[in-house]
């Protein structure tokens, strides 16, 4: 009359083990769910009985109560179908209670009794391992993902029937097909920097961005190649450590965007559309809190094309992840934290019509509209964009006269060296790369030569460099010096850094003209 099974609820990216209790008692046939089930779990009520009956098992025609405990945690997602069904079957004595206790279960059931893959299985497996449970039983399609957790027995089952047979000792899963070593090839498969013709300055600027973790603003007319360049940034970022890859996989698993299963090895590249909502970009949503695009871009690249067309509140919301590398979504049910440390690449036309500064087409925007357009990016957000460059639309002659670019692998080699130098210089520092150096210490940490100081003060006098522009230039110069292997920031490094500061707002250029 009583059964007990482990399931896992996923809140944010963390799972917590839930005990699913079932009781079969006297009364009219019914199924009652208690213990703060979310809308997705409530759904299970109607699905479980047909699934059980289709599997050649018997549904107890009595009053059934299922309780999810602890009752304080909101349970959401379709993964509770399987533990609920098993709890009821255990209460009806159709499965042995002994082996049940050594597994946590997750999976959605079809009416026919098949197990359907669910999102968040990696988080389930991690939680189960942390709780000391011996193994997990998950849908076949999720097995590879759960396998990523070391020291956990993973059973990928095709149907509810197979799970019951497993518990009875009548069925063993076929040995798992190991996921291919490369895992998910990622969205950048087949892309390489050598595809880009011309745009040497943008290539160089992105190399610097990759080496120092700097965020980039690219301005240029339509068709200049901004998107093409941005997509290739993740191909020159250093490879991810296993820990980083696991973080990414877990986030993608929770969001249900994991394709093919297995570890995500390529750095993510996310390019949300301008119409993205605030929860879509930053995470959240009603009911189940999903990671947003910023978290899906964790350890990778977030590309905002036509950045001025994004909703203002969504853009302002980027400030927290840009600052802290995480997003905290607070709802009535509690606060959830998602990691979100990414390189931001923003692209924009220089003005509403897109042709300001173009050689062949003149800009036709009324000046006040051009101003309003540029004011759509707030100062604090601009402040986080260390590198700002103009990407010109090349004429045919310029394109033909351009050299092909270096391959991504070559550039990545230099980037990895530069990152290594950063780590060696400041092993104890709380920041991981130059871009994260706080402005207050940047100048001391960067170690400028006397000549570099002089170059910097020239820019302050001659180009009306602001205090914030100053910090940005120092950070970028430090990265350039790291790329060149300079111990201290030399005058040349500083001078080059100062060229990647194309003014965005009219005011910024006031005294430059």
């Amino acid at each position: 009359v009583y059964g007990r099974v482990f399931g896992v609820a996923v809140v944010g990216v963390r799972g917590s083990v839930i005990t699913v209790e079932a009781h079969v008692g006297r009364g009219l046939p019914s199924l009652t769910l208690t213990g703060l089930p979310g809308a997705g779990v409530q759904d299970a009520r109607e699905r479980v009985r047909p699934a059980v009956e289709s599997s050649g098992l018997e549904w107890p025609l009595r009053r059934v109560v299922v309780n999810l405990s602890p009752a304080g945690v909101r349970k959401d997602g379709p993964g509770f179908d399987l533990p609920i069904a098993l709890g009821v079957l255990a209460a009806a004595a159709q499965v042995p209670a002994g082996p049940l206790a050594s597994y946590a279960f997750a999976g959605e059931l079809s009416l026919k009794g098949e197990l359907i893959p669910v999102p968040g299985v990696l988080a389930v497996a991690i939680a189960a391992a942390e709780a000391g449970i011996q193994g997990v039983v998950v849908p076949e399609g999720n097995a590879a993902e759960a396998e990523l957790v070391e020291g956990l027995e993973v059973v990928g089952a095709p149907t509810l029937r197979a799970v019951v047979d497993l518990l009875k000792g009548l069925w063993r899963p076929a040995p798992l097909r190991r996921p291919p070593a490369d895992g998910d090839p990622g969205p950048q498969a087949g892309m390489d920097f050598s595809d880009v013709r011309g745009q040497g300055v943008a290539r160089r600027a992105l190399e610097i961005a990759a080496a120092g973790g700097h965020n980039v603003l690219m301005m240029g007319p339509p068709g200049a190649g901004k998107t093409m360049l941005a997509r290739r940034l993740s191909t020159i970022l250093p490879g991810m450590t296993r820990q980083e890859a696991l973080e990414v996989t877990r986030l993608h698993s929770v969001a249900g965007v994991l394709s093919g299963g297995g570890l995500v090895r390529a750095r993510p590249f996310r390019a949300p559309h301008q119409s993205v909502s605030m929860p879509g970009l930053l995470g959240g949503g009603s009911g189940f809190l999903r990671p947003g695009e910023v978290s899906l871009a964790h350890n990778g690249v977030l590309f905002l094309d036509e950045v001025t067309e994004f909703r203002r509140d969504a853009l302002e919301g980027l400030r927290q992840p840009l600052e802290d590398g995480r997003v905290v979504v607070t709802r009535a049910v509690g606060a959830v934290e998602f990691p979100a440390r990414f390189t931001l690449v923003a692209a924009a036309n220089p003005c509403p019509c897109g042709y300001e500064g173009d050689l062949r087409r003149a800009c036709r925007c009324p000046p006040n509209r051009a101003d309003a357009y540029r004011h759509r990016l707030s100062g604090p957000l601009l402040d986080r964009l260390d590198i700002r460059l103009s990407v010109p639309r090349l004429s045919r002659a310029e394109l033909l006269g351009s050299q092909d670019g270096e391959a991504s692998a070559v550039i990545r080699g230099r980037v990895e060296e530069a990152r290594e130098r950063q780590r060696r210089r400041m092993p104890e520092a709380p920041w991981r790369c130059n871009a994260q150096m706080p402005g207050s210490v940047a100048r001391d940490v960067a170690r400028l030569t006397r000549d570099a100081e002089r170059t910097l003060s020239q820019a302050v006098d001659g180009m009306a460099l602001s205090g914030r522009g100053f910090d940005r230039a120092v950070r970028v110069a430090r990265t350039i010096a790291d790329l060149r292997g300079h111990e201290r920031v030399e005058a040349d490094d500083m001078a080059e850094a100062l060229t990647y500061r194309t003014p965005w707002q009219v005011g910024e250029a006031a005294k430059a003209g």
Partner: protein
Amino acid sequence: VSGASHSPGDGSHRTIECVPAEPEPTRERGSWPLLRRPGDLRRELGARRGREGIDDAERALAWPAGFCASPEDRHALLVLLCLSTLTPRRLLGLAAMEGSAASCLEAVRRGRDASVRDQELARSIDPRDMARRLERGGAGLVAVHDPGYPPELLDLFDPPAGLLVRGHPLGLLEPRVAIVGARNCSAAGSEIAASLARALARAGVTVVSGGARGIDAAAHRGALDAGGTTLAVLGSGIDVDYPRGNRVLLAEIAAEGAVVSEYPPGIPAEPFRFPARNRVVAALSVGVVVVEGRTGSGSMITADHALDLGREVFAVPGPITSELGEVPLALIRDGATLLRGPDDLLGDLGLSLPAPGGARSRARGRGGPPAAHLSPGESDRDAGSPPQDLSQVESVVWGALQAPTPPDHIAARTGIGLPEVMSALFQLEVRRLVRAVGGRYERRLGHERG
């Protein structure tokens, strides 16, 4: 040939000497000689716009002597200037019949010469109220026949009956040369406008423009920077700062020169007022310089008026591939004087830069620019000659900048590494030898660096 060759304000120029002697009456339209003088153009443009039919009697229409004699008349004029359908030409006709401004206002209120809405408006505005508003805004009215009324305005076919002035009397701001052009100008255009304005200001000329953005703002700013005087003609009410972004600039112009408008306080900026404003810009100036403009733009209208009025027209050529070069190039093709820089302009106007220290610049509170800025040699260096004391890499990079070029192309062409090219470009930029425009670098002209 009716006096076309000795038009007012054309100060004797070389253009005239170059004109081939050709009997004008026999010339057919369409078969123009290569070189023409402004007068020819004026007639041609007049014909194009259907002005040839105006008979002398109508042209001779003048403001009656007692039009604005009493204070009541002056207050009434303020109301009349608010009525957009009572055009200056209509007002002139009405004044010829009614005599004084006060009687004109009475006539309009009774239902003459303006739209029903404007008649209504004329009835609702209290003239005294308007006068008080004007005073509060620190502006004054200069009516026709007033000693301060610029007589040049009477050259117009439709002279304004009065001008509202904020700042210094116009009599102190002479001679005047206008610099006009596109609002949406290029970086080079605004630098050229500013450098022309600086040169004019140092030579003691008041720079006239429309107070708009782009070339206009650059011209005003240039004149102010050189410690000179400048005059903005608004297309909105005298107290309406339009565009709002130029509020600070307009305040400075009023402090150092004057802001004038045909329109009383509170009149909003509306599209049809700007062409009307342009005729005042042209009339107040002895010459008009067009820096950049697209076909059909306000710069073309100002130049047309200038030709009509016999003012000298100058144009700074732009590339034929750029839309912004359209108006200046069309004007040059029609015979306007081509400017290569401030020296050309000063030479053509018969002016020269005063010796350092002797500038007719007002003593400005914050002190004038350093004397070095005033040296005539500033603009002597032409764009082609390489600047001195560059490092080897810098001079190679400078040499490669024949046209706007992306830095990676400079690197490819010279064999210097891109990082080194970028550093060199920064050094050149900070010394104001080059500038970045949309991802390419280009040389600055020698005279833009003052």
